[in-house]
């Protein structure tokens, strides 16, 4: 593959472990086709953590599952785009090649450890499973590697706990077992689907700190799907904000959290109560999330956007590059700062 340098981000191919280009995933439902992922493009560099932020229906989980080509239902299909992992287009690979990659080079951490772990298999068996399928990914015996990785996720006394079952572990420890399953074969990329959403806040804090340290130590990249902006701030280097199957804004985490440009990003940040900040009312986004079967040709946020214009309904705005290397898709961005417009229109 010829060496490319991305005009916006100045990334070269060597820097990038994952490049998603114009990904489209559709799901057949009664009453039509849902464009769950509607033209999504982003990159993940080696060693970095990228966030995929959105609410339910935004397409973030489907994007993640598309990368692994593990779409949860037969009615869902990837219909367009490409997914480049370390130079290979995953969408052109046969299933056997995907099996070699899954667990070994791309790993998955799911949301609810209670349902993600098999209750009748011991923890040692389950953490060892990816290691047994991909023996070339580690040195020494499987058992030793399992103990090693359980130690690294701070499971106390791992040798004794190998033969225990998931129900004998607490919620936080089960989540760490999931992380151990993912990390065992030393993958290049971890896909994490809301791994801390079901955890208590103190346990979540432990988990986030642990993951940050492990990633730094191993240089593993990660795609972190979440709806929690606090988690984004603590884990991600860059962020993509999704709405109705599309990315509406992307950029460096500091920039996005301090100066969001897209009205949806801004509204999202405004509507979340923050510790230590006293307000009479929260900013509320008017209306409801859109019906994904009937998306307009233009921007799906149109109905709820305080800055909407006619063109927004007709055409989805192209990327407006931003100084941090990110971009925003909004027709109004060039006219006035969205923050001022939202503030002047007041809470809905």
């Amino acid at each position: 593959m010829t060496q490319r340098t991305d005009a916006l981000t100045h990334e070269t191919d060597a820097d990038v472990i994952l490049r998603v280009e114009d990904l489209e995933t559709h799901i057949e439902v009664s009453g039509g086709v849902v464009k769950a992922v509607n033209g999504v493009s982003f990159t993940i560099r080696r060693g970095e953590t990228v966030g995929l932020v959105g609410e339910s229906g935004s397409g973030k989980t489907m994007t993640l599952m598309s990368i692994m080509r593990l779409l949860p239902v037969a009615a869902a299909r990837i219909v367009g785009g490409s997914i480049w992992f370390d130079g290979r287009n995953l969408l052109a690979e046969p299933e056997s090649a995907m099996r070699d990659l899954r667990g070994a080079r791309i790993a998955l951490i799911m949301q609810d450890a209670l349902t993600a772990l098999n209750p009748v298999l011991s923890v040692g068996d389950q953490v060892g499973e990816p290691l047994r399928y991909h023996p070339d990914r580690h040195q020494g015996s499987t058992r030793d590697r399992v103990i090693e990785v359980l130690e690294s996720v701070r499971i106390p006394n791992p040798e004794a706990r190998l033969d225990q079952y998931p129900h004998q572990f607490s919620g936080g420890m089960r989540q760490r077992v999931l992380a151990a399953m993912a990390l065992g074969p030393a993958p290049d990329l971890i896909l994490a689907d809301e791994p801390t959403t079901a955890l208590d806040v103190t346990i979540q804090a432990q988990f986030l700190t642990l993951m940050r340290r492990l990633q730094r130590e191993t240089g593993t990249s990660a795609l972190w799907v979440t709806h929690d902006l606090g988690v984004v701030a603590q884990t991600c280097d860059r962020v993509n904000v999704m709405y109705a199957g599309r990315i509406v804004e992307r950029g460096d985490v500091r920039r996005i959290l301090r100066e969001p440009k897209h009205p949806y990003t801004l509204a999202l940040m405004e509507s979340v109560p923050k510790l230590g900040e006293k307000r009479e009312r929260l900013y509320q986004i008017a209306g409801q999330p859109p019906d994904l079967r009937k998306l307009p040709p233009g921007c799906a946020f149109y109905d709820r956007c305080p800055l909407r214009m006619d063109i927004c309904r007709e055409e989805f705005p192209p990327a407006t590059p931003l100084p941090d290397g990110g971009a925003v898709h909004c027709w109004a961005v060039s006219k006035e700062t969205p923050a001022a417009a939202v503030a002047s229109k007041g809470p809905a």
Partner: protein
Amino acid sequence: MTMLASAVSARARSVMGSTRQLPIVPLAMLFILVVSALFADVLAPHDPLKVNLTNSLAPPFYHDGGSLMHPLGTDELGRDILSRLMHGGRVSLLLAMSVIFIGSAVGIPIGLLSGYVGGLTDAVIQRGVEAVLSLPTIMVALVFVFVMGQTYASIILILSPFVAAELARMVRGDALAVRRTNYVSLARVAGASHLRVIVRHILPNVAGTIIVVATLQVGALILVEASLSFLGVGVPPPTPAWGLMIDGGREYVATKYWLSLFPGLAIVLTVLSINWIGDWLRNVLDPKQQIL
């Protein structure tokens, strides 16, 4: 993830051949059977009891020697098989309906009580239900009818507990699940009495299960009744009954197959249609299909 859930059900539907669509074929079959059973008096071409020894063992119309007068042939006493089939169907149907009715009247309240109250009451009731369910239906019915006399009443009386037990078990399971839901707790918080909760909240959410179980039980009952009459302890003769007709044709199976075949086919088609419809009902009434 409701989007995905809806996709799953859509997929299931397309794989199973549109399970939400009305199952026309079984409904049609059942319709024919029910109508001919209910209106047997009017629709049957002959008197099912009329003996005519001169025309015994006549073959169905598609054989030499058969005629459209007796389209399905006649039995060893010259009685028209088609008419006997229709009248026999009525017997089966009425019997099944009566048993279901009594079984429901007893079984549903027991199941609701057991599931709602829980604890010791539930344990005691369930042991009783399990005892009944562990009995071999036909054997018990056989003995009972033999001892108590071959009447409609005794047959209905002995078969009802089995239906009641099955319903009690299924309803109890559902009632247990519904009792734990938030909306039931909130109804109690609002001040609803136990009776109100059972009638307005538990029962409607259990109705789906009841309908499906009852439907499937009809099929089972028809088989039981046929078995009983085959064994000679079914409805008292000379009333025609499908099982009895099969028994009557036993000696002639090799040569005059139509005596046993047609009543056998009638049983198969009836039970098949009922089960098909029962399955369809279960799919249609499943609340998980209610998305989007």
